[in-house]
C-alpha cells in the first residue's frame, strides 16, 4: 500500500501482497493439476490431438471463447475502449457473433462429419496438395508467431506487475504452458481454457462494477466522457462524445469520415470478410469444436460460445472507457499528453488502461484475482496457439509429407516434441518481439491476410462441386497477395513501408485489404475452375453440399433433445439477442 503514493517511481506498477501471491499460486496449482489429471486420459494420438472427441458442448463452447480471449484481445480491446469508446463492440457483435453462428449452422457439419482432424486436412481432401500446403504452412507459422507475441505480453505484464525480470517471467510462463500441454494434450488445454474463462470473469467483473460505482454508474460514465470530449484540446483528436457513446455508425473505429461508408466498411469488411475468414476457418477455434462428442455438440460449440462472447465487451471495453475518465495517466494520454511510466517503462500507452484501473480501484485480494485472471488469459491464448500448432505440424506436415506410415504412438511422440519445439521458438519470438515490437505488429497484420481469402475458398468449395483443385491454391495465393498489395499501397498498414497511394489508414485499410482478397479469390477461383479439371464427384461426399446425403450433416438423435438444446433454435436466440444489443448501444 505504501508504494501506492509514489506509483510512477515505484518498481512495480501494482503492489501485490502475500494474499495476492497466494491467490496467484493457487491458480497455478490448479492449472498443473488439470494437466496431470488429463494425462491419465491420454492413450493415443486422437486423445492427445482431438481430446478423443469426447467433450460436452458447454465445455468446448467456453473453450472456443477462451482460446480467443487472450492477451491481444483483453489488453487490445480495453485499449480500444479507452481510445475510441463503445464502437469497439463491433469487434464482438458484428465481427464475431454472425460468423460463429454461421460456422455452427452451415460449416461445422462438413468439418465434423468428414472426420478430418484439422482444417488444413479438409483443404487437402477437397483441393489436394497445393491448397493444403499453402494453408498448413501459413497457419503453422502464424501460430508460432502469435504464441510468441502472447508470451511476450505475458512476460511484460508479469514484469510490470510483480517486478520479475522479463526473461524469468518468459521462462516460467513457457514452462507452465509446456508442462500442461505435453502432459494432457488438447484435453488439458481445453479444460484449462474453461477454468481460465471463469477466473477471467471473476477478475474483470468486479473491476468493471467497482469502476462503474466510482464514476457514478453508466450515466455518470456517459456524462464524464461527454465532458472530457468537450474539453479536450483539438490537437488530441479525441472522437466526439456521440461517437464514443454510440456504436453506429462507428466512424471512430473504421477511420472513414462518411457515416455511410463507415457502416458499409464495418458490415462488409469487418463483419463479413475479416470475421468469417477468422472464425470459420481458423483451426485454433475449429479444433475446440472438433473435440466435442457428437456432430450436434460440434455445431453447438460456437453457438453456445456466442452467448458469453456477446457479453465479454461489457467486462473488457467498459473498463477501458472507465479508465479513460478515472485513471489520471490515461486521461492525460487521451488529452494529447505523454505521461511517463506504464508497463513498458517508456511512457503510458492505451494498452495499460486495464492495469492502471486495477491499481486505482482494487483492494488487495481482488487484486490477486485480477492478476491471476490476466495471467490466465495470456496462457489461454498461448496454449491454444500451441495445441493447434502441434496438431497441424504432426498430422498435416510431418505425417503427410515427411514420415508417412508410422505407428500412432510415433505421432503422439512427435506431437509432444512439436509442443516442446513450439514453446522454445515462442520464447525466441518473444525475445525478438521485446526489441522489435513494430515488426511483430506488421507480421501479425500480414498473417491476418492469410485468413481473408480462406473463407472465400472454403465456402465456394463447399457449395460448388465444379470448383477444381487448381482453383483452390490459385485463389488462395492470389487472394492473399492482393491483400498484401492493398496494405502496401495504403497509408500505414505496414508502417513506413506502406506507400500511401490509396488514402486509407487504420482499420479502414485492413477492411479494404481483406475485401480485396475475398473478391479476387472468388473471381479467380471461378475463372480457373471453368478451364481446369474438377475432382470426380465420387470423391466429394462429405465435402460438398450437393454430394453429401443430408443424414451425414445432421445428428439423427438431435430431435430427442428439448428445443433449447437444439442447434437451430439456439442460433436463433443468439441472433435475436445480438440484434437487440446493437439497437441498445
Amino acid at each position: 500500500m505504501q508504494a501506492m503514493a509514489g506509483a510512477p517511481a515505484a518498481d512495480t506498477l501494482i503492489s501485490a501482497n502475500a494474499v495476492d501471491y497466494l491467490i496467484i499460486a493457487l491458480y497455478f496449482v490448479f492449472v498443473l493439476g488439470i494437466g496431470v489429471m488429463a494425462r491419465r486420459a491420454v492413450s493415443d494420438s486422437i486423445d492427445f490431438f482431438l481430446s478423443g472427441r469426447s467433450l460436452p458442448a458447454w465445455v468446448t463452447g467456453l473453450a472456443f471463447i477462451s482460446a480467443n480471449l487472450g492477451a491481444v484481445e483483453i489488453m487490445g480491446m480495453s485499449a480500444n475502449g479507452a481510445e475510441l469508446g463503445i464502437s469497439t463492440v463491433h469487434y464482438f457483435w458484428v465481427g464475431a457473433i454472425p460468423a460463429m453462428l454461421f460456422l455452427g449452422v452451415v460449416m461445422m457439419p462438413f468439418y465434423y462429419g468428414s472426420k478430418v482432424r484439422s482444417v488444413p486436412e479438409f483443404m487437402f481432401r477437397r483441393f489436394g496438395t497445393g491448397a493444403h500446403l499453402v494453408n498448413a504452412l501459413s497457419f503453422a507459422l502464424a501460430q508460432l508467431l502469435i504464441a510468441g507475441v502472447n508470451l511476450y505480453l505475458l512476460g511484460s505484464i508479469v514484469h510490470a506487475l510483480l517486478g520479475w525480470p522479463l526473461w524469468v517471467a518468459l521462462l516460467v510462463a513457457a514452462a507452465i504452458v509446456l508442462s500442461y500441454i505435453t502432459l494432457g494434450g488438447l484435453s488439458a488445454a481445453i479444460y484449462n481454457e474453461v477454468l481460465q474463462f471463469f477466473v477471467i470473469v471473476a477478475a474483470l467483473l468486479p473491476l468493471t462494477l467497482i469502476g462503474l460505482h466510482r464514476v457514478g454508474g453508466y450515466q455518470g460514465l456517459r456524462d464524464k466522457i461527454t465532458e472530457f470530449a468537450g474539453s479536450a484540446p483539438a490537437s488530441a483528436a479525441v472522437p466526439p462524445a456521440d461517437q464514443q457513446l454510440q456504436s453506429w455508425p462507428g466512424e471512430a473505429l473504421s477511420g472513414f469520415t462518411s457515416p455511410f461508408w463507415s457502416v458499409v466498411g464495418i458490415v462488409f469488411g469487418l463483419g463479413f470478410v475479416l470475421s468469417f475468414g477468422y472464425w470459420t476457418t481458423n483451426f485454433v477455434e475449429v479444433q475446440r469444436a472438433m473435440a466435442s462428442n457428437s456432430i450436434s455438440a460440434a455445431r453447438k460449440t460456437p453457438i453456445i460460445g456466442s452467448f458469453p462472447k456477446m457479453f465479454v465487451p461489457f467486462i473488457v471495453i467498459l473498463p477501458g472507457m472507465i479508465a479513460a475518465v478515472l485513471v489520471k495517466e490515461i486521461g492525460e494520454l487521451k488529452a494529447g499528453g505523454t505521461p511517463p511510466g506504464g508497463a513498458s517503462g517508456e511512457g503510458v500507452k492505451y494498452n495499460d488502461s486495464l492495469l492502471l484501473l486495477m491499481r486505482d480501484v482494487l483492494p488487495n485480494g481482488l487484486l490477486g484475482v485480477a492478476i491471476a485472471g490476466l495471467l490466465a488469459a495470456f496462457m489461454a491464448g498461448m496454449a491454444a496457439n500451441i495445441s493447434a500448432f502441434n496438431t497441424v505440424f504432426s498430422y498435416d506436415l510431418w505425417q503427410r509429407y515427411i514420415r508417412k506410415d508410422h505407428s500412432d504412438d510415433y505421432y503422439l511422440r512427435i506431437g509432444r516434441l512439436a509442443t516442446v519445439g513450439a514453446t522454445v521458438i515462442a520464447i525466441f519470438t518473444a525475445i525478438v518481439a521485446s526489441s522489435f515490437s513494430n515488426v511483430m505488429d506488421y507480421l501479425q497484420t500480414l498473417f491476418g491476410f492469410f485468413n481473408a481469402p480462406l473463407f472465400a475458398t472454403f465456402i465456394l468449395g463447399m457449395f460448388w462441386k465444379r470448383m477444381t483443385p487448381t482453383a483452390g491454391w490459385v485463389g488462395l495465393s492470389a487472394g492473399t497477395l492482393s491483400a498484401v498489395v492493398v496494405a502496401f499501397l495504403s497509408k500505414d498498414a505496414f508502417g513506413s513501408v506502406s506507400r500511401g497511394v490509396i488514402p486509407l489508414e487504420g482499420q479502414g485499410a485492413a477492411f479494404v485489404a481483406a475485401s480485396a482478397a475475398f473478391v479476387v479469390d472468388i473471381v479467380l477461383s471461378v475463372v480457373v475452375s471453368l478451364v481446369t479439371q474438377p475432382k470426380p464427384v465420387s470423391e466429394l461426399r462429405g465435402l460438398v453440399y450437393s454430394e453429401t446425403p443430408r443424414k451425414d450433416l445432421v445428428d439423427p438423435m438431435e430431435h430427442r433433445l428439448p428445443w433449447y438444446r437444439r442447434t437451430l433454435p439456439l442460433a436463433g436466440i443468439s441472433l435475436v439477442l445480438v440484434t437487440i444489443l446493437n439497437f441498445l448501444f
Partner: protein
Amino acid sequence: MSQHEIDAPAPDAARSGRHTAGAFDIRNFIGALLGLYGVILTLMGLLGDKALDKTGGVNANLYAGIGLLVVSAVFIVWARLKPIVVPDDVEPVQDDPTRPAPKRRPGSH
C-alpha cells in the same frame, strides 16, 4: 457413424452402473478454485484492509467473496446432480484411405 451420444447423460444412464468422470470433472475443479478464492476474499473483506478509498466505499472483497462462494456451490451441486458418464466404449476413428495411414494399436480404447 454410430457415435451419437447425446451431449449430456440422460438421468437413467447414471443409474445403469456406467462409471462417472468423478474427480476429473472440470466442474469440480472450477467449483474448488472459485470456492477457495471466495473464502480468501471473504476473509479479506472481514479482516483485511478494505481500501475503501479505492473502491468508493464498498467492501468489494466481501461482496466478491460471497459471490464466488455462491458460484462455486452452483458448480459443485451441478456436478453432483448430473455427473458425466464415461461411455463404455468410444468408436475408434476409422482409417481413411486418403491420408497416410495412422496405424492404430489393436485394443486401444
